[in-house]
């Protein structure tokens, strides 16, 4: 992997112009059949999807996460530079900690390790009511249980009436129903809000 700044420059140039375009046929056929040929459908009806894992992280060694699933199945998940890691925002492996929960999707290798394409750490998806609004915090009622939902300036966004997200949270109202996508603080009733979906009128 090249230096991150050089890589970013390269990728920016590729998408915004300035770099020579190599003919795709240099890499083989462009026919869709060729593109799909490598991806056989491996999931079997009625069985667990082998390319998916979920659970709590019990150890991190190099780029491999040891994960205990909620059904007590042990997973080894390999994270590479190409793996997307979400923990409230797109982030890197050094921000992931033992004790975090995760969902991972990728391809199962021969030795049973899951080579992850995407990992979502501590992600939660809640339907709740707003009990109170404070400075950078929403107090939520989730099926009678209180949830403390922190607003993270610069990250937390709101989507009103299904429109694209905005940073403005001032249309949230006490007593209203919301759906919240966020990152859980492990072993607590607190979350950081990524996006809050609400009705506004």
């Amino acid at each position, binding site marked *: 992997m090249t230096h991150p700044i050089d890589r970013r420059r*390269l*990728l*920016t140039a*590729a*998408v*915004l112009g300035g770099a020579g*375009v*190599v003919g*795709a046929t240099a*890499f083989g*056929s*462009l026919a*869709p059949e060729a*593109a799909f040929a*490598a*991806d056989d459908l491996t*999931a079997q009806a009625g069985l667990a*999807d082998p390319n*998916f894992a*979920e659970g*709590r992280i019990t150890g991190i060694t190099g780029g491999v996460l040891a994960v205990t699933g*909620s059904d007590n199945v042990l997973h080894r998940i390999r994270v590479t530079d*190409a*793996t*997307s890691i*979400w923990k409230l*925002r*797109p982030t890197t492996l050094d921000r992931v900690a033992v004790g975090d*929960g995760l*969902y991972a999707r990728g391809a199962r290798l021969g030795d049973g390790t899951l080579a992850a*394409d*995407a990992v979502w750490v501590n992600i*939660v*998806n*809640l*339907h709740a009511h707003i009990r*109170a*609004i404070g*400075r*950078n915090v929403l107090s939520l009622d989730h099926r*009678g*249980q209180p*949830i403390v939902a922190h607003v993270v300036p*610069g990250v937390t*966004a709101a*989507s009103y009436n*299904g429109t*694209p*997200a*905005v*940073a403005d*949270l*001032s249309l949230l109202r*006490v*007593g209203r129903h919301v*759906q919240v*996508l966020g990152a*859980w603080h492990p072993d607590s009733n607190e979350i950081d809000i990524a*996006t809050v*979906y609400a009705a506004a009128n």
Partner: protein
Amino acid sequence: MVLWVAALQPLLIGAVLLYSSAVKLAPRRSRPPTSGTALARLVGERRAAWALRLLGVVELTLGAALVLPPVLPVEAVAATALMLGFLGYLGYARAVVPDSSCGCMSTRRSPVTWRSFARGGLLLGAAVLAVPAATSWLDAVGTRPAAGTGLLLVEAAAVIAFSAELDTWWLLPLRRLRVRLSHPLARTSRLTGPPLDSSVDQVQHSAAYRSVAYLLRSDVVEHWDEDDWRILVYSARYGGRATTAVFAVPRLRYEPQAVRVALVDDQTGAPVDPPDPSKLDHNTLSNSTFHEGTLADLTLRSGPLGDASLNDAPLSGAGAGRTGPGAVNVG
């Protein structure tokens, strides 16, 4: 003085019992009033509804006896016993079924907290105080109307304040008013630029995304801003080779048709032409995107994140917008 205060207590306890019995005896709504309560655990799910009605009848009888003349010490003694029973029930609920609803004064789900115990304690104190009462509350209010009304109002306010079920009467309107006067999150829009979520939304509604969606393997790997553009990077696989999909999104305007995409080979660093979407067979495409689905299918499972109830699957509608290629409807 003590006897005067004692004489007022039957009205407070009676009114609370009458209100509580009305909730329990009201015509059944869609949800059984016993669902999620510790009562269902105590006497069994099938008998809980009858037990609750029976309790409602007891409350109605005792409440009416307390409020209406004549004044009998046995009424206050019965109320004391009932309040002791309520406190014992709350203790049982808290110890055995901590997540259960109180089911005391509302069908609204309200967990047993310190407020429930405070209300129970207050009413128990009032019931004990009422035992020596010899005159009717009507006479007591008649002798000192202002003081009597004031005392009863304070006591009623305390009962309401300790009743989580009644928060919608006063606490929520107060909080709404406070937010209307000065919204604590009013400054959020001024502090930051457009959120990443908005850019992801633009990408997912763009023709550029539709042309390469089936190649994408990951969620957003990284992103940065470049002048008027926001660059989003995804991992992709094309023709069996690891590639990087780079999207350029207008940063300050919502214009999905302006989104650009480039595929870059990870090994050589050379750009790769994305395939022409018009040549793709839609059936093949939809199968593939389903296979590569990310959150769309993973959230159909129960959440692993400690408390499974923290996750309300499935992620659908607006919520799916945040996620990867699985949520996309191509064609």
